């Protein structure tokens, strides 16, 4: 009996893994096919003569290089800026006393239930007024702080021993110095986790960049891909190459940093 049960468990897992990975593997395979090769019955699995033509065409005529640069610049900027802002705030909410601290924190937690989309229309008008619509700033500035990020850092920072901070203060270190040389090293694991969350979230974000970046020159990869796929509905192979360029970078980042990502997810959910 245990043999049979093991077979069923592992068979089901194999089946689920196949369903999870098949679309991604198929995307990669079709991206190397010649135009029209995927539009036959039965659908082919592997390219007859693998070619990079689809990628070449996307970069030469589709402006893909431009979109890739936009995505890289925006993701890097949002990640760096929001990490700095959220880590500083999360630490202060956990370890530094200031007026109304706990009341402000409770208000922030309450605001977590409000979906971001409620703010989108007025935010668009505000950014238009500030001249930030159709600029990198329109994506970066509203993302510079996140309640979720502050919350994550605070939960982790609560465990920093007060003695550690007091000892540094007695040595005459400034608060900024304590933050840089004592707090940040201790918080490193949660900083890496939050960095991965922010990076993936920003790269994959669609609705807000779609709204705030109407100039094609500024499109991020997801916005560009959505627009290309409306123009080129019949070009399977070209669109698969576009999908590869859009999603492969985040898949690689995830595979490299998956340990801290998964641990962050588990810690955040069960303890929080």
């Amino acid at each position, binding site marked *: 009996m245990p043999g049979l049960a093991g077979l069923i468990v592992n068979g089901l897992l194999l089946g689920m893994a196949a369903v999870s990975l098949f679309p991604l593997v198929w995307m990669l395979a079709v991206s190397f096919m010649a135009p029209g090769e995927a539009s036959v019955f039965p659908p082919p699995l592997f390219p007859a003569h693998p070619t990079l033509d689809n990628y070449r065409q996307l970069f030469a005529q589709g402006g893909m290089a431009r979109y890739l640069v936009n995505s890289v610049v925006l993701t890097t900027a949002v990640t760096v800026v929001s990490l700095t*802002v959220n880590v500083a705030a999360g630490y202060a909410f956990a370890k530094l006393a200031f007026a109304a601290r706990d009341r402000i924190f409770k208000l922030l937690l309450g605001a977590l239930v409000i979906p971001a989309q409620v703010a989108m*229309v007025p*935010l668009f008008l505000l950014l238009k007024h500030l001249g930030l619509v159709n600029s990198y700033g329109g994506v970066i500035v509203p993302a510079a702080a996140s309640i979720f990020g502050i919350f994550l850092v605070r939960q982790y920072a609560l465990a920093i021993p007060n003695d550690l901070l007091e000892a540094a203060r007695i040595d005459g270190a400034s608060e900024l110095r304590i*933050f840089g040389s004592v707090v940040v090293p201790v918080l490193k694991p949660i900083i890496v986790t939050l960095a991965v969350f922010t990076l993936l979230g920003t790269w994959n974000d*669609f609705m807000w960049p779609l709204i705030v970046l109407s100039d094609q020159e500024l499109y991020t990869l997801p916005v560009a891909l959505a627009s290309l796929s*409306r123009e080129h509905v019949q070009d*399977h192979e070209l669109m698969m190459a576009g999908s590869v360029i859009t999603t492969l970078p985040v898949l690689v980042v995830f595979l490299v940093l998956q340990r801290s990502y998964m641990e962050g997810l588990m810690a955040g959910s*069960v303890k929080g």
Partner: protein
Amino acid sequence: MSVRAAAWWFVAPALLVIAIFFVLPVLAALALSLTDFDLYALADPSNLRLVGFQNYTRLLTTPLFWQALGNTLYFVVAGVPFSIAVSFGAALLLHSRLARFRAFYRTALFAPVVTTLVAVAVIWRYLFDTRYGWLNYALGSIGVTPIDWLGDPHWAMPAIIVFAVWKSFGYNMIILIAGLQSIPAELYEAARIDGASPWRQFRHVTLPWLSPIVAMVSILTVAGYFQLFAEPYVMTQGGPLQSTVSVLYFMYEEGFKWWNLGSASAVAFLLFVLIFAVTAVQLRVARWQSAA
């Protein structure tokens, strides 16, 4: 500088950004939803008029708004239980002592979660293709006649649900695995000594322990599924016959295609109230269950 003063410097940037670019717009959304803000007001604010609740009353008599609401509810009511069932099944399989290569399977099942929604929606549009898609090919091999997944108003939403579940089940799976791992081994030990079968152990140890986690996961998933947007935008553009227009898709078109920003704000607010109400009911039920 005192610790107190320093603390303000640490939190000020975050609080300023949240106040100006989140709290202020949310309050403004409420105000804006009571105006007729449109393309003319965008050009010249003096064209702006207060219209009271007219946006809301007009929405409630707009058939497409009701359709969008119905489509979204369909997506939530069918998609969330399906998604959680798959997450739960996958978590149990991965947690089983009989499972081999767990690290590999965990990564494989989680991979769709980190992919870019737009990119994988494009892939699935082709998998759903009536003539050349893999789905119909696979179904054809067991004798099912080809289905026009994204072109038939009856099948478009189920297709989007299948895609959304594929994309997102790994997230809750990880949280449920963490929950399964947190169950003390002594509980199973005691149940076994009492002669409980594996099924009874599952029923009387695993399920009660996990129920608060399942409740939390359901609440978050429902709130997330209400925000359906990119899937119909990429896969169906709301069609066919508007069978996949979601509330957010409706809001996007109302606001950023037709520039009826007052009306779009009203849509956003109605969606918020709806999510809030559903969450409140779920919390009630969860609390009542854990008390029972």
